[in-house]
């Protein structure tokens, strides 16, 4: 032990003497779910050991909408206290002005990442953030319950609804009164935009605003998709699902009270923890497909990145940290411990990763075909577009008007917002 520490000390001093880096004090913000913060801390400890810098984590709420408001405010005020931001995949176009261009710093490593993800973080030729992990949701299902009731993993939403209802009714009849069929993210926030975009897209209803800026949401398939989701509330999903974000849905699921759940892969590792009632009794599958013309399975592209504030007093050390967090080593540990999807293609065939999260082999294809939220075409208006969309969907789910009525109003509101051009 002592010799090890001595070596580490020697190595550190060598790097310091070598003048590779001046020790800096950095802070980074992170709003994470589950054990994400603890994981980040363990990685930062390694970073501190390697570089001699110190990093403080400023924890933030896990809701992306809440984080965004705060970051926007800090960045607008030129806040120097935060050096590195953990950013959602949709923020790049809105915050591009406030972050440093990482093109040069990351020139050697960008090639290893998926081009589509690097592209999503590039605004007008400027690489705004480096990817830490990507995200494409899964249908979590209870292997024990499906087997017990002799059901297959559903491949369409209709099948999922029927199976969920049947198993839920049967389980309740056996005295499991808390059992529900399906939980998802139904609160009025960014997560509902992700969920609803999947329903709409899987029914062949487009992606709200298309890549060329056309507003496409008011169509019969989209309405059918959202009406289907509205039929879940109070039947296979609890009424309270209207207030669930990721962690609330995971809470119900992890207590063993749901047959199906729509969630991001981070829940995969957590569901297998020792205090989980579903440990060893679940698996994941691609989200079900819709029905009708152009239907198929759709997954919303998520993912988080690290960006460096242009107001950072110590940009070099901050860039070093960003590169570290996006590095293959950290992404690999993240994939194993947090079951977050790596953005580096090579890791999808890594034996250690696949041993911890076997599903990842199938996920390569899923996220490569994932639907982006319309943040690129709607630019600075994205948040308002998303808010209008989730409000229209939330209204429908709560029984305020049918999907067709709400989507017509949504189309009018979006047209007003768009004006001549986004």
């Amino acid at each position, binding site marked *: 032990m002592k010799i090890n520490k001595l070596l580490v000390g020697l190595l550190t001093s060598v790097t310091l003497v070598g003048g590779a880096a001046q020790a800096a004090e950095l802070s980074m913000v992170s709003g994470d779910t589950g054990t994400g913060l603890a994981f980040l801390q363990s990685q930062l400890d390694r970073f501190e050991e390697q570089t001699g810098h110190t990093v403080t984590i400023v924890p933030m709420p896990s809701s992306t*909408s809440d984080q965004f408001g705060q970051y926007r*405010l800090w960045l607008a005020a030129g806040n120097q206290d935060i050096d590195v931001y953990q950013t959602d995949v949709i923020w790049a176009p809105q915050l591009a002005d406030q972050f440093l261009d990482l093109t040069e710093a990351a020139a050697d490593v960008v090639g290893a990442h998926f081009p589509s993800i690097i592209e999503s973080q590039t605004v007008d030729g400027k690489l705004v953030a480096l990817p830490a992990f990507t995200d494409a949701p899964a249908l979590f299902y209870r292997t024990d319950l499906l087997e017990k009731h002799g059901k297959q993993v559903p491949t369409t939403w209709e099948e999922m609804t029927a199976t969920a209802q049947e198993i839920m009714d049967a389980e309740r009849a056996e005295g499991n009164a808390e059992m529900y069929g399906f939980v998802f993210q139904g609160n009025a926030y960014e997560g509902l935009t992700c969920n609803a975009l999947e329903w709409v897209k899987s029914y062949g209803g487009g992606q709200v605003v298309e890549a060329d800026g056309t507003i496409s949401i008011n169509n019969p398939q989209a309405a059918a998709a959202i009406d289907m989701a509205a039929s879940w509330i109070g039947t296979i999903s609890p*009424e*309270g699902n209207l207030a669930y974000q990721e962690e*609330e849905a995971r809470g119900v699921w992890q207590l063993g009270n749901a047959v199906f759940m729509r969630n991001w892969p981070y829940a995969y590792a957590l569901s297998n923890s020792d205090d989980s009632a579903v440990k060893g009794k679940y698996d994941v599958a691609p989200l079900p497909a819709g029905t009708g013309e152009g239907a198929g399975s759709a997954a919303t592209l998520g993912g988080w990145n690290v960006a460096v504030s242009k107001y950072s007093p110590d940009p070099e050390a901050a860039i070093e940290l960003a590169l570290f967090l996006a590095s293959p080593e950290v992404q690999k540990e993240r994939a194993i411990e947090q079951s977050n999807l790596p953005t580096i293609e090579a890791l999808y065939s890594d034996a250690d990763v696949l041993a911890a999260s076997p599903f990842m082999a199938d996920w390569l294809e899923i996220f490569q075909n994932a639907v982006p939220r319309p943040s690129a075409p709607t630019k600075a208006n994205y948040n308002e577009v998303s808010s209008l969309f989730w409000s229209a969907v939330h209204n429908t789910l*709560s029984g305020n008007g049918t999907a067709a009525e709400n989507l017509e109003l949504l189309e009018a509101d979006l047209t007003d917002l768009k004006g001549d051009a986004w």
Partner: protein
Amino acid sequence: MVTDVLTASVPAAGRKTRSELSQQRLRAARWFLVPMLVALSVVAGWPLARSIYFSFTDASLNDLYGAEFIGFGNYLRWTVLDSGVVRYRGTLADPAWWNAVWNTMRFAVLSVSIEAVLGMLVALVLNAEFRGRGIVRAAILIPWAIPTIVSAKMWAWMLNDQFGILNDLGMRLGLLSQKVAWTASADTAMTAVLIVDIWKTTPFMALLILAGLQMIPKDIYEAADIDGVHPVKQFFKITLPLVRPALMVAIIFRILDALRIFDLIYVLTPNSAATKTMSVISRENLFDFDNFAYGSAQSTLLFLIIAILTILYIWLGKVRFDGGDR
């Protein structure tokens, strides 16, 4: 508000004789006011002036200092289409804004009136002589002492549909037939917010009313007892008129608070259109939607609405802040 209290009481003291001494005291009082006025203008006056200024510009958070003056466009503007149809835009023509105004008014009226009645009841109980009164008085203040964010989060868990204690109790006692998603459904979201707010601020109301009750001389009640006046009549004919000045002041504090409610709703039901208030919607526009100037216009309207309502209340209610009778 604080300045009114002080400036109003100073002339009242020096009205009878303008002696050298009282004039000296008047001058001293003015000097004592200076630090507070400076502090107020820095922390309240300047930000207010800035947001009023921004409301007449096209400011965005990415470019605050390059904002250009655009007049009343953020409040109301219109374009006449080729077909002759007039399209109105701006906050004053925004249904989301008027929904927020309506939510705020509804919240303020409901919460303040329920709190006034409950606060009065609590104050009457605490005004009675009984053993352990000191402890009860201290205990009842606990909800008021807890920071709003903490109590909102605490209630969010208690109101949670799956894990919440309220649903659990309700089901066990047979009061609820199924678990209610209090904060999720549009029908109960406002009720949930009201419950938490009433729980939190009734103690404040009770405390202010209690202070008023203790100023009522006991001998009036003795006289009424001797005359055989019924206790209920005593309350309406003696207690209520005499406690009225304190009650009116307590109510106005609460109205000011209720009209600008933000933290509780932001934590409990952040994006529900059923509870979105003026403060919540203006914050959303200011920071989330990058409509900084538009949000400033809404903040300015919020300020004007609160100012007008306060002036109306003081004028119509003949409120006096020196604690005297009307």
